[in-house]
């Protein structure tokens, strides 16, 4: 392989993948919406310069004589880069899965504690509660486990299914990732749902819309004091914007 052009081809592959993601509205699977415009502009610029570079005459390579080991490393690096580049244009875009939820521990870093406060939420209307996302509820659950607070508050949330660590058979989380910059920093948030033997009916990682209300968690094994008792659990497709920003 010629390392001289490898970089140009790698760059153009990223650029093509990026422009395509942007054109199909899927760039938000990887980066926060606030960077989309900047990313698209730079990708377009790189495309123009990249194409123009094809037209210049090829000069001689001034490569310093490299020893054998470093040549092997650079060939290996190039091969790995080629695999990733191929994956960029061949593997369909995807969201993060429950595997990442497991390494990052759901609701762990206090994400969104400031999103909703108990005092403000007490006075909200039912209509407002119906619009709460899993992040809103997760932030309330982190603040209070007083069942009286949750009674009469309708819940209607969507997310993908991950298993509760302490009672994986009977409790699952309706979860979402919260993104502040790009998918690398995704933090999982979610609310526990009490549904005995849920795995018989729903698949891990599949998207569902759950309605119901919060009650004292009937599961004795689960560490969560409060869980959502579902009225309906309806399978849905992956939303256009799977992450919360």
């Amino acid at each position, binding site marked *: *392989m010629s*390392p*001289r*052009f490898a*970089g*140009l*081809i*790698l*760059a*153009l*592959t*990223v650029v*093509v*993948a*990026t422009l*395509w993601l942007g054109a199909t509205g899927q*760039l938000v*699977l*990887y*980066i*926060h919406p606030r*960077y989309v415009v900047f*990313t698209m502009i*730079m990708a377009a*610029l790189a495309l123009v310069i*990249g194409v123009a*570079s*094809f*037209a*210049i*005459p*090829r*000069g001689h390579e*001034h490569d*310093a004589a490299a020893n054998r080991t470093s040549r092997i490393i*650079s060939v290996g*690096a190039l091969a790995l*880069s*080629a695999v*990733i580049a191929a994956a960029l*244009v*061949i*593997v*369909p875009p*995807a969201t*993060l899965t429950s*595997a*990442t939820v497991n*390494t*990052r*521990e759901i609701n*762990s870093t206090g*994400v*969104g504690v400031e999103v909703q406060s108990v005092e403000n939420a007490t006075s909200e209307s039912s209509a407002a509660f119906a619009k709460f996302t899993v992040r809103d509820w997760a932030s309330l659950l982190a603040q209070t486990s007083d069942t009286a607070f949750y009674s009469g508050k309708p819940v209607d949330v969507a997310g993908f299914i991950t298993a509760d660590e302490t009672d994986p058979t009977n409790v699952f989380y309706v979860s979402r990732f919260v993104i*502040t*910059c*790009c*998918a*690398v*920093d995704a933090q999982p948030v979610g609310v526990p749902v009490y549904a005995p033997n849920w795995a018989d009916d729903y698949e891990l990682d599949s998207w569902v819309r759950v309605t119901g209300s919060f009650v004292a968690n009937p599961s004795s094994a689960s560490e969560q004091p409060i869980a959502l008792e579902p009225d309906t659990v309806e399978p849905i497709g992956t939303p256009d914007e799977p992450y919360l920003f």
Partner: protein
Amino acid sequence: MRVDTLVENDHQEVHPHRSLKSRLTWLGIGVAGIAALFVVRAVTAETVDAGLPNQLQDLLTLATSVIVESMPFVILGIILSIAVQEWVPDSWILRVLPRNAFARRAVISFLGFFLPVCECGNVPLARGLMVKGFTVSESMTFLLAAPIINPITIATTHAAFGWDGWVLVARLVGGFVIANLVGWLFSRHNDQDSLLTRRFAAECRLPQAHEHGGARIHKSLELFIRETSVIMPALFIGSVVAGAIQVLVPRSVLVTLGSNPLWSILAMLVLAFVISICSNVDAFFILPFASTFMPGSIVTFLVFGPIIDIKMLALLRTTFTTKVLVQLTVIVGLLAALIGLVVNYVA
């Protein structure tokens, strides 16, 4: 199909002065190749069911996210690097700098105000500055300071933290101090060239050909090809390693360390090292951790992360020797931890 293209290039003979016709042919090949990539992408998105196991899929998603997030900054860095090398008269940059080495590095620390790229874009730019006549230690000061002391980073850090807990001030002062200290340390090295990789040192020694007219555009495109060939593989490898570590190492290990003044600083050093995101946006990333971690630890993350992380080491390796990078990592890590400790105990 990409590999095919690579192989084709390899077999191309070298014709320094090719005719217009052959240039147009190559342009056509380039355009056709790009069109083919678009078609492949659009078709595979509908037809291929990757069916990858979750962990592998997430590794790819995380790596892609680092690449896509860094790409615009890398391109911006390469463009600015080309501008500095080919389009800005030497006198503009080198002549306005003070003669005294300390004052010179201090002024260089603020170059980020005029060349606001984050750390990954900074690598090609620093390479450009070295080719243009910066010493190794001066370029190091620039590399370390510019990602922190630049308008975009200041704006995003301010947007995320305001004036709370000295985070912004400590980040700026910390970045400045570290950059100048490291620049001074490396300036004491006897053989500056030995700090650089052999390939890059050779590049720096090449005489600067004097340009006329259209040759400049030609040389600019030539530089674009050369810089992408160095930077892109490094970016790819760095991103994959960063993604792999995040899939394999539970984040909770770090977060449980958060409230201890010493351990939380070490946890932040590791997190900054692993996460590998650009300095222009890292303040937003770390903001949710502000409630669990002490402010000094946040400062450590914000000072260390822009300079050293997995992706950056891969990028820096294109230019500096491994030994220099190990020294750099240790020095910057210790200094960043020290600054964090001071903030933890004072603020």
